[in-house]
């Protein structure tokens, strides 16, 4: 599917998420859906970066590169992660 540059990604509101880091993995209970997600990095980081406001793919990539030392700032890989989160309902495509 064609990805326009203007597509915005919005994370589920923080008050709808219970995030419990366990060990290598993190549990996310999503109150709006009642679904529990067991996730690895970088999912918690992605959700956190999207929390202040919806962002485009490029904006998100820039924010992540600045905050974490991203060695391979690959937009295609990030897009795949975001699509997974959209499927899971934790991120909405606007």
């Amino acid at each position: 599917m064609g990805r326009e540059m203007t597509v915005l990604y919005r994370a589920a509101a923080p008050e709808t998420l219970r995030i419990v880091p366990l060990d290598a993995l993190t549990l996310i209970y999503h109150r709006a859906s009642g679904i529990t997600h067991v996730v690895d990095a970088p999912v918690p980081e992605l959700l956190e970066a999207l929390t202040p406001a919806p962002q485009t793919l490029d904006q998100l990539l820039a924010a992540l590169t600045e905050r974490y030392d991203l060695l391979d700032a690959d937009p295609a890989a990030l897009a795949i992660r975001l699509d997974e989160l959209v499927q899971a309902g934790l991120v909405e495509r606007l």
Partner: protein
Amino acid sequence: MNPGWRLATILRDPSASLAFSPEEWTELLAVARAEQMAGTLAHRLHGLALPDRIKRLVEDAIASTEQVRLAALWEAEMARRALAPLGVPVVLLKGTAFAAAGLSPSAGRNIGDLDILVPLESLGEVEAALIAAGWEWVKPDPYDDAYYRRWMHELPPLIHRERDRMIDVHHTILPLTARITPDAAGLIAASEPLENGLCILSRPDILVHAVAHLLADGDLAGGMRNLWDFHCLVRDGGTEGLLERARHHGLAREMARALRLSHALYGTEVPLEYQRLGLADRLYLRRLTARDGWGRQTRRPLRMAFYVRSHWLRMPPAMLARHLWTKYRKGYRPVG
């Protein structure tokens, strides 16, 4: 009083349960579960001075329906996200609509599949968008699929591959084979938007749909619950304009009958003309309340008659014979 009627009596007047024997409680709960009304009953009983055991069961049932409500609303939200780019009206139906709009039948109501109504001309793109968003056909069966597409008022059911939840996409509220053909475009034209962009039917159309579902489309299985929905909606908003709207959709007879049945079973306030039952009404009431103290259905011949009748309503006779034969060969049984 048979256990089905006793459930109706307690839904009308919950305090009548306070004199119940343990056996009457046991039967009441069994019938309520069988009718998918345990949560509804629990909401009606909540707050009364109940025996401890019953209080526990009431609390559990209320907590359980809260989770059901949440999951149903989430399913609607995911359908909204999948369909929003199409810009077509998406109308929630039945239980999910009641929950999304905060209508009174939703208190404790069980909600199964997600039912939505979309314009007939958008059916193809709606189907494609849902499949792109992770919904899949439930076990493809050539006969059922062809049957649905040719004759039914909905797409063959889709199930989401991750969430394991079904969606029924309707383009009208009765099968195309039924002799009654409601004004589907009118239903959508009169629908009302919710805050999130999804729609619900107008109030009179919600009642028309409840009536179509109860009396023109089924074998009355689950009828106590459907009639309770109807009762709550009439109680909240009265009967004005209902018959006119039902007549527009070809469902005036059914609307009148639903008003009579609801008055008889649940004590709904209705105009005087709907307060007298005919012989057929009494048969409907017997069928609606046909449960024993274990929640099992009784009155088998009567149930079979209603099953054949419900198919008669939907299909011309030659087609009915073919359909029942195909179903029979595959081992289908009319009722559980």
